[in-house]
């Protein structure tokens, strides 16, 4: 734990970051920028896990390992999502969600 910084300041940062990600997910229409918003959301959740681990349960490592697993899941998700995005681009010549309206071709 860091002397002089309360737990809630970390939580404020991660909460604001989470909702900025939500805002980006609602506003953006490009598939890649929507994926970037999801990365922001996952990242803010990771900060929460790590900080709770450090401040409230420093004798265990549950939050630490949970965020490692979340990072692994995020990497897998990004790989699959980008494969799908490239396929969508080949099919519709655009990665705008408004254009790619049908899922079956």
């Amino acid at each position, binding site marked *: 734990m860091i002397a002089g*910084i309360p737990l809630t300041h970390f939580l404020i940062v991660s909460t604001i970051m989470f909702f*900025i990600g939500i805002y980006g997910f609602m506003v953006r229409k490009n598939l890649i920028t929507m994926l970037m918003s999801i990365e922001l959301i996952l*990242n803010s959740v990771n900060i929460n896990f790590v900080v709770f681990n450090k401040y409230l349960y420093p004798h265990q490592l549950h939050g*630490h390992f949970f965020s490692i697993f979340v990072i692994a899941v995020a*990497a*897998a998700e990004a*790989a699959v999502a*980008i494969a799908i995005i*490239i396929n969508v681009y080949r099919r519709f010549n655009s990665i705008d969600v408004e254009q790619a309206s049908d899922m079956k071709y």
Partner: protein
Amino acid sequence: MNVVIFYTFAAIILLFSLLAVTSRKILHAAVFLLFVLISTSGLYFLLEYYFLAAVQLTLYAGGIVVLIVFSILLTSGIDDRFPLVKPLKAAASGGLAILGIVLALAAVLRFPFAAASSNALVVDMKTIGRSLLSYDVNGYVLPFEAISILLLAAMIAAIVVAKKKGEKQS
């Protein structure tokens, strides 16, 4: 000193995550996302979880951002600008996000977090490796194996989805 570093990182995270979702050039948005991820790894260094910070740097800031930049270069023009968001949509989404922030922070700030009484564990590579592969109370061998199968499945799925399907689609 730590306090100054923390607030600097927090300011960088908030500023650049806002820029990453509002920037109208897609490559700029990716670079802003990179700044956010690197600052997050700085927070982990500050919390003395060095392994996690290294994983964040290599996997997130290294791997995922490079993947995103590659797919940007494959799918969109670098000089393209997104059209401006419709004001009504921006206001509605922004209002919802701010409402969410207010509600979540109202709940968080009123909750009395009990300070930890136990002394901190030293997190070195030996501890991390032993807990990842042990199957007693604080072991994580089952999620570790599940994640490894998930990564393998994702790798195969990415190859299968992204490869060209013969000549018939041309």
